[in-house]
């Protein structure tokens, strides 16, 4: 009989990091379903492709670092990064855009900083920011919701989307010619609103009827999809409510203040909360534990910081959506927040 000698505790909760990551990936499904429903298979294909790239990069780097590859792949963190990137990129983003974003995220933003758990910046957002700066055109052309397609023939199927993303595939394929297909692209409601020019809000909404009705509705539902997934994760105690709630609250309050003072120039809060990537950002990106603040109070500050920055960048920055930059900026100050928001330890008078 050989008795095991280990230190306490002898019991741990079943499960491992991979389970947590998988659960998060699963929780993106409602949002992904909505995206696919409204914008076709593009995002779905993006995610698959991004995942492949991520696994490849991860395996490569882990092998180069002389670590056990299978062990590291099993934590699914690379795939989660890929999924988040895939969800953020435009549905018909060309394959090379995804490739660049994902490989940069995994290789530079994650592994050059020491691998999982040690990266100060959210890898998915670093990859996203890189391609957003480098390829603004590709990045801002979102597909119009499919329901907009007037003629049934133009409806975009899986194959169409695949060819749109990987144009070279159509060359070797003998079937449909891509040339016949002209995808309708348009800006997201937020983007559109930002570029409304001299129009007042009322004029914008009346002229951009398409945006105001169908597209807006699509985005609302996508956001609600992510919201549902996020709430599920809170319920499963994967993360706490503090970051998403404080971020949404900050964003909501900011937009409410500006909108109530000047409704013709500032979008109403709902547009900020449900348009664009707000929900995805609040529940799946800002909550990335590695790069967020840790203590309860710290999380509240961190989330609120993101919310405020998002609003500022959306209104006065050069980019239509601001989640990536806001998150990255707050990643930057997270250690500082941590330093000043240590919880009060049992028996201590106050925090230091």
């Amino acid at each position: 009989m050989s008795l095991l000698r280990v230190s306490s505790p002898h019991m741990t909760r079943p499960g491992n990091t991979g389970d947590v990551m998988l659960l998060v990936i699963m929780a993106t499904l409602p949002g992904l379903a909505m995206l696919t429903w409204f914008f076709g298979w593009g995002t779905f294909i993006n995610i698959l492709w991004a995942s492949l790239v991520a696994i490849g990069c991860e395996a490569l780097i882990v092998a180069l670092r002389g670590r056990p590859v299978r062990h590291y792949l099993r934590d699914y963190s690379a795939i989660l990064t890929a999924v988040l990137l895939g969800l953020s990129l435009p549905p018909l983003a060309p394959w090379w855009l995804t490739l660049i974003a994902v490989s940069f995220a995994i290789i530079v933003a994650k592994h050059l900083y020491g691998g999982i758990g040690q990266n100060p910046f959210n890898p998915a957002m670093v990859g996203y920011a890189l391609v957003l700066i480098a390829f603004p055109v590709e990045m801002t052309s979102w597909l119009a919701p499919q329901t907009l397609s007037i003629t049934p023939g133009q409806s975009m199927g899986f194959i169409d989307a695949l060819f749109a993303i990987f144009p070279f595939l159509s060359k070797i394929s003998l079937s449909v010619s891509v040339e016949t297909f002209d995808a309708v692209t348009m800006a997201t409601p937020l983007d559109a609103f930002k570029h409304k020019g001299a129009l007042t809000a009322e004029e914008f909404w009346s002229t951009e009827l398409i945006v105001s009705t169908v597209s807006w509705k699509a985005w609302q539902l996508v956001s609600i999809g992510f919201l549902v997934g996020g709430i599920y994760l809170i319920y499963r105690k994967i993360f706490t409510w503090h970051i998403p709630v404080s971020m949404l609250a900050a964003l909501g309050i900011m937009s409410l203040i500006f909108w109530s003072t000047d409704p013709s120039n500032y979008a109403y809060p709902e547009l900020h909360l449900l348009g664009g990537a707000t929900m995805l950002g609040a529940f799946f990106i800002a909550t990335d534990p590695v790069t967020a603040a840790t203590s309860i109070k710290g999380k509240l500050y961190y989330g609120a910081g993101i919310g405020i920055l998002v609003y500022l960048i959306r209104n006065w920055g050069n980019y239509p959506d601001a989640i990536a930059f806001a998150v990255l900026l707050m990643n930057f100050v997270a250690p500082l927040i941590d330093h000043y928001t240590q919880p009060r330890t049992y028996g201590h008078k106050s925090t230091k």
Partner: protein
Amino acid sequence: MNWQPNKHLHTFHGGIHPPENKQQSTRAAIETTLLPSKLILPLQQHIGQQAKTLVQVGDQVLKGQMIAEPNGYVSAAVHAPTSGTVTAIEAHALPHPSGLSEQCIIIEPDGKDEWTQLTPVVDYQQLAKADLLQHISDAGITGLGGAGFPTAVKLNPSEDLPINTLILNAAECEPYITADDMLMREHAAEVITGLQIMAHILQPEKCLIGIEVNKPEAIAALQHAVDELQLTELITIERIPVKYPSGGEKQLIQILTGMEVPNGGIPADIGMVCHNVGTAVAVSRAIIKGEPLISRITTITGEAVSRQGNIEVLLGTPIDTLLAHFGVKQDKLHRLVMGGPMMGFTLDDVSLPVVKATNCILAATRKELPDPAPEQACIRCGMCAEACPASLLPQQLYWFSKSREFDKALSHNLLDCIECGACSYVCPSNIPLVQYYRFAKGEIRIEEHERTASDHARQRFEARTARLEQEEAEKEAKRQARAEAAAAAKKAKEAASDSNDDKAIDPKAAVVQAALERAKARKAKKAAETATGEVADDTPSKQPAVDKDTPKLSAVERAKARKAARAAEQGNEQTTDKAAKKGGLSALEKAKAKRAQQADGSKPSEQPESSSKAEKKGPSALERAKAKRAAEGEQLTNSDTAAVDNTEPAKAMSALEKAKAKRAAQSSDAESTAAAAAPVSALERAKAKRAEQAQQSPSEPAAEEKKQLSALERAKLKRAQAADNEASVETSAASTTDRPDSADKKPMSALERAKAKRAEQAMQDAAEDSAADTENRD
């Protein structure tokens, strides 16, 4: 019957809900019939100083007979659990995380189970508090909840800390363990009586019994007993929610009162004392029946035994006997844990005995407690912080411990970690967080040691310089004294020779002459004394006269003892390590301060050299230990990077823990060194005790430290001897030059006495040095 938790209670941060696994062992009543063929009784079953053997090999002992007495204030007696013969007194492995060996008394039962004469207290209400405490102390009672702090000490907080709440810890929050539950079900009246006795001693305003609602039978039984004894005024049974670790002393206090034990303090600081239910029963038996603590209730559980339940087992029963009694399935037994699955420690030797703190033996199969999963990287998910009952940030502590940023770990209050394991339990990356904290705490202790060691060296150097200067002055003074003495002697001699002539003729004159002589002698003596007195006065760091100093010293020592006791008591709250460290340090500082005060001029010049030599030896041993540790630390880090195979890190960890625990054990020894010296008011006794300790300490286990210590001690002894020698040499030198005759013998002897006194002082200092160094070793 189903109880709800009381509404007015408070809560503590975090906590977890691991599977309780308590039903298995509560189905059968407590068994009582197990008489092993051999009992192994460690002298050290408690926090504090090891007990002192009272028996010899071959002695016949009776059940309940004291076989080892407490050695000092913070110590506990050991009694024979049954009648029989002492067959050996030898080192035997102890059930301790370290797997240390310590002196044990081995008894072979004769099967008669014959009691010794017991002395029950007829009416404890009539007895003085001190007498009751003496009874409890004589019964060898220590906390039975797991930490094993001597109960009499805990029942005797210093007078300036009035106790308003006496808490009985019946939470028993660890999974699997049901010893307290069953005890309360079957012996509720004794629990309440014990509580009543403790309340009589402490005179609190109220008594609270904190019990988790998953023990409805126990709650009902207690309530019944309270009603029966008409104590509802005094005692409140508080039903608390089930949450681990609600049974942690600090957490229970927080739940029941909403107050927190201040950082670095003990519950008595906020007017509370907390005892375990098992302890209450032991107190009740000691007072009402006069029975010492010779058995305890232990849970035997886990899937590797065919029968699970509780047994009132004689202390010292080998665990293999116990396991066999419960039908252990040897092939299935994979992990043997003493204590619960959250805070217990694994045993790899089944011949270890049951001790006072053994509340559970968990014989688990591999399926039940699977081998630790491979460690993954921390994803900073914060689940650990959510679970931490001390409101720490375990992920940060882990990070700092791993990267050896110990100062940051300290600033994140690493030392407030109670090692409850809640963080490890929830960590999705399966990081053995608590192991990292233990590692870091050990490292911090070593660093601390080094720092104090170098402080020590500096102090010694300064003391030496001062000493040399002083010696110069002293020599000068001595010369003068001698000259005066010689002059006096000459006069006396002349007088003597005069009287010699007359002696035969006039007896009356002889008497007068003798009186004169005496007066002269007295004068000479006085002269000599003032001479030495001047020397003493000249120096700022003067050596106070021994007799004069005695009361002061004993006061200091008393304070020291109290401090050590306090520190040790802190250790009671689950973190033996932390407290041991703190206690060690504060005691150390005290010792240092004392030494600084006493930096005396009377030590001969050889001393600093020999001591510095000894110190040179010290650090090198330390260096070795450090190197070893560093290697282990390396392993620790590597274990994470090559995390696939976990057996390696596990091994490294256990080695690490061994080393650490050894140190912890020693540091608690060191504390008690200070503590043991406490109640001694006369210097002689203190000295005797110290000498005794000096004798004992070489028998301590850690080979390296032992060497270091004995080298040090040898040096000290040499030094003391040298001091002695020098004194006598000087005396004799003085005698030869001054031609001893009847008259100058007296002044000389006065000088001699002064010298002797100084030598004695030097000796004492040496002993104190070694005591300080003993403390240093943690």
